[in-house]
């Protein structure tokens, strides 16, 4: 936490608003407001093509959107990824360069790979492997673990459970619950059965607008047509 003194050592609040985006004159995001704070897991749900990934990338700072405002504890940050120790992001695509082993990547991300895989002992034998030498599920899980254990105030995950086998999904969900004690997590994934019990707050991205769900998340998702009734 000492790497981000400008934001203090207490809980952090990440806010994003004013995000408007259109592709080929089709509005994808319209005046979105999003809030994540330390100690929270925030779920971002929505149909395919609703703009979830774009929204995460905008918050992360990789996608420049005019008028977008991303703030931490009220301080404007643009792009957020340039602020040391503030935020990391797992894209849907593979994160790691193909010629770097997991252990080498962990060193650059300043993560202890042994500690990161403490709950997944079978992965330890694969730390010397490059991403292309691993199964899709193992590579995905290791990438999630590296970012989860990195010393950042926030982690943004785009489909973190994708391709991971059920027994590991449960353990990973437990890891996320542990990690939220020291950081804020924002994740999007279509595996709502795994995501919903994890989340303290759930947003639904629908027709370009971000709706904060209240009460029973599953009922609300059925009402909005995200889940079949």
């Amino acid at each position, binding site marked *: 936490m000492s790497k981000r003194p400008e934001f203090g050592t207490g809980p952090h609040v990440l806010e994003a608003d004013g995000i408007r985006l259109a592709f080929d004159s089709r509005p994808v995001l319209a005046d979105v407001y999003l809030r994540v704070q330390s100690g929270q897991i925030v779920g971002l749900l929505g149909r395919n093509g609703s703009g979830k990934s774009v929204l995460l990338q905008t918050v992360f700072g990789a996608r420049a959107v005019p008028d977008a405002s991303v703030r931490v504890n009220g301080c404007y940050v643009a*792009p957020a990824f340039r602020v*040391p120790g503030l935020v990391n*992001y797992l894209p849907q695509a593979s*994160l*790691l360069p193909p010629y770097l082993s997991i252990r080498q*990547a962990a060193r650059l*991300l300043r993560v202890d790979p042994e500690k990161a895989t403490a709950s997944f002992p079978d992965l330890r034998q694969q730390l010397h492997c490059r991403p292309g030498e691993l199964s899709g599920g193992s590579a995905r899980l290791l990438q999630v673990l590296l970012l989860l254990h990195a010393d950042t105030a926030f982690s943004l995950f785009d489909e973190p459970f994708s391709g991971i086998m059920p027994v590991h999904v449960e353990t990973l969900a437990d890891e996320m619950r542990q990690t939220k004690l020291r950081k804020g997590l924002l994740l999007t994934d279509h595996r709502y059965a795994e995501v919903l019990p994890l989340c303290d707050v759930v947003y639904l991205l629908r027709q370009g607008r971000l709706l904060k769900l209240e009460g029973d998340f599953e009922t609300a998702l059925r009402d909005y047509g995200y889940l079949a009734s």
Partner: protein
Amino acid sequence: MTILLTHLRVVLLFYRSVAPFMLLISVLILWCVLRPALLEGWARGGILPQLVLIKLMTGPVVWYLAERMRPNQYWFYYNLGVSRRFLWGGVAVLDGLLFSGLMLALNACYA
């Protein structure tokens, strides 16, 4: 100092991904243009700056191809806090130095 070293390592890492294209271009320019020029003696009119210019002009082509073929290659570097501009700036400096070094070495060999 640690941040500087990390950034240097990151640029070297990124350079590794584009080095095959950039080094191939360097070798082609040096072998197909500079070497015959030196052997045949028509390199005395200050060909070296022109070669550097040619090499500089190939940079945007490599950049464009890398953007088109590997649009997702930047995510890891973003997670290290390094921007796309910094990566390509570092690559330009590194590759420029390497090209200049090879060019001067070849020039010295055939002088």
